[in-house]
């Protein structure tokens, strides 16, 4: 894992001291709210419906046990005993006092964490594959480049006041688990014919009120040019991105309005002027950062663990857990374990302080001291010996963390919605809970198979509804919550934006409507192998429309 050097430590500590002084001046009245608001947002502090909300950065979703314990401590000491893991691989605390935030930031700095650039019109936390450095299908660890991008983008003086926020995602595997094509910049690690490492570059993807799939601007960007090319994209965006209309300010609108070819030329021209200069990625720096992410020393283990296989025969629940929540690891005898934060009827992404402590202990004892946050609001132990899975499972189960639903319909994304969020128009969590309870039965969930259901409580789409196989968008219709269904979205390497299927449903009817969609899929699929999204792509929306609204 990356460790702060002196420079990182100094700058984080400086920022905490600055913020401490800003809070003091705000409380004494030296700063008005108008003056203070941009300062607190720069430090991840929002004001939501019930209280302030502090969003803490978890760079590319990677953290260690000590950091997780600190999050548990903050939840317990300064908040209401829980935290909420987000689709940006961050964590949010929903109830901190303004007067406590400087102390919280001090405590975070002690474990090399902060809340810088988790808000505001700047480059946000770079997100990545939760199985980075572990997945069997990966050919290069994307966290190395995510970290390089983090260092380049942190307090970058030119890019702190962009037209709007800017999100970068990177993946190092064929299977895109980081939704790179719905980010402002999406990077897919690749190799050219000579075996050199580089990136496929997408620009202008995004969700929100104008969802767009990123456009490819480079088939192969050499590793060495990563920063110069990123700088060129940001410069073009900073210069031409719209500042007159908040809703048209993201780079996706610039791509759309300017046209891909012209924008590509602008980027390439800027790149020509920038490359071969200070931003050339020095090889020794790549090597140095690579060392931070060197895999733990894996033991030579058999591919199949007889211990795990025997335990699975004894315990059907463990067998089920293993079939859904384990992901193939690059080292034989190891696996990555998904810890679902989607218990039946729970709030997606929430974990109690006690659960965080347990997870930290498990990571330390069985997981090489590493944890990941997924953009689907779960946690991951990336490196676990197969033979340890029965014990890990037992501990997780005792702490209500062993739901065997990774990738199933109850493993859904939901934003905080109107229960917490000042921007929301409708509630998301109760809808997620109702659907979760409706599909509680294990057999039925598994019969349905892989299905990504995503719920947002407003058009800003924090719940990624546009790229849900089934998406739900909550809107306010004359004071009543109404839920629109979109179908056919996807955020993997075959990214697509879902289509609105028809008129929305009131709260009391939305779960039935989802069930109708699922039943229509089950009735029309070719066989058990055909997943929901494949069936939808073959069938189109007609059978679903008919089932929901009649012909």
């Amino acid at each position, binding site marked *: 894992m990356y460790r702060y050097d002196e420079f990182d430590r100094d700058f984080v500590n400086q920022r905490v001291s600055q913020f401490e002084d800003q809070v003091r001046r*705000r*409380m*004494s*009245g030296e700063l008005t*709210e108008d003056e203070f608001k941009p300062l607190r947002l720069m430090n991840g502090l929002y*004001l*939501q*419906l*019930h*209280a*302030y909300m502090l969003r803490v950065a978890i760079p590319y979703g990677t953290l260690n046990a000590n950091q997780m314990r600190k999050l548990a401590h903050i939840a317990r000491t300064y908040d*209401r005993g829980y935290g909420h893991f987000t689709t940006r691989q961050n964590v949010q605390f929903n*109830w901190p*006092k*303004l*007067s406590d935030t400087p102390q919280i930031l001090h405590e975070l700095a002690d474990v090399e964490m902060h809340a810088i650039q988790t808000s505001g019109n700047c480059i946000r936390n770079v997100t990545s594959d939760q199985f980075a450095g572990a997945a069997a299908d990966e050919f290069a660890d994307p966290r190395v480049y995510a970290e390089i991008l983090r260092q380049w983008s942190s307090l970058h003086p030119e890019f702190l006041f962009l037209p709007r926020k800017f999100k970068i995602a990177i993946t190092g595997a064929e299977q895109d688990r980081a939704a790179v094509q719905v980010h402002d910049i999406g990077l897919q690690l690749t190799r050219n014919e000579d075996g050199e490492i580089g990136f496929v570059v997408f620009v202008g993807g995004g969700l929100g009120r104008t969802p767009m799939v990123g456009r490819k601007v480079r088939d192969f960007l050499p590793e060495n040019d990563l920063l110069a090319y990123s700088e060129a994209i940001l410069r073009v965006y900073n210069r031409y991105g719209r500042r007159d209309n908040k809703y048209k300010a993201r780079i996706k609108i610039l791509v759309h309005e300017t046209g891909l070819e012209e924008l590509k030329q602008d980027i390439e021209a800027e790149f020509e002027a920038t490359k071969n200069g200070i931003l050339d990625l020095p090889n020794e720096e790549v090597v140095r950062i690579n060392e931070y992410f060197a895999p733990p020393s894996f033991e030579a283990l058999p591919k199949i663990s007889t211990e795990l296989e025997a335990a699975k025969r004894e315990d059907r629940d463990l067998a089920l857990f293993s079939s859904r929540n384990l992901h193939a690891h690059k080292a034989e005898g190891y696996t990555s374990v998904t810890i679902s934060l989607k218990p039946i009827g729970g*709030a997606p992404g929430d974990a109690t302080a006690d659960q965080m402590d347990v997870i930290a202990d498990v990571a330390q004892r069985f997981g090489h001291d590493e944890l990941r946050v997924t953009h689907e609001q779960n946690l991951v132990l990336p490196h676990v010996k197969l033979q340890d899975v029965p014990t890990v499972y037992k501990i997780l189960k005792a702490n209500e963390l062993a739901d065997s639903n990774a990738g199933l319909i109850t493993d859904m994304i939901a934003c905080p919605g*109107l*229960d*917490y969020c000042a921007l*929301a128009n409708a*509630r998301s*969590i*109760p809808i997620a*809970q109702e659907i979760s309870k409706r599909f509680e039965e294990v057999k039925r969930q598994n019969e349905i198979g892989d299905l990504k259901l995503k719920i947002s409580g407003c058009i800003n789409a924090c719940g990624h509804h546009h790229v849900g196989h089934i998406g739900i968008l909550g809107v306010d219709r004359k*004071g009543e*919550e109404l839920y629109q269904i979109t179908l056919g979205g996807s955020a993997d390497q075959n990214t697509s934006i879902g289509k609105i299927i028809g008129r929305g449903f009131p709260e009391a009817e939305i779960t039935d409507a989802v069930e109708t969609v699922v039943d229509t899929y089950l009735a029309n699929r070719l066989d058990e192998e055909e997943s929901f999204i494949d069936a939808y792509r073959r069938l189109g929306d007609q059978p679903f429309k008919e089932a929901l609204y009649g012909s």
Partner: protein
Amino acid sequence: MKTITANRLVDGDVVWLGHNGEWVEFVEAAWVLGSDEDMASALDFAKAGEDKQYVLGTYAIDLELKDGHLQPKSLKERIRAQGPTTRLDLGKQAERHLRSA
């Protein structure tokens, strides 16, 4: 019927304007503004509350009578007045319960 609401600066807690210009923690203690004069003096109190750095983001909301109880008209304001609908152990609904216990 209207009243004025805000968040308290120090902790972000939801508050409403009381009858004497004080800020109260439960909506049922809020000053129900029945006339234009009431509204004018309430807005003065609200501005004073912001100027004194006690509250931020003051604004007027609509109230209605439901089953004999005064409550905010919009769902968003009802959630602010109660707490998350999915966590009855949090927010005003929980504090109210604790106080009456």
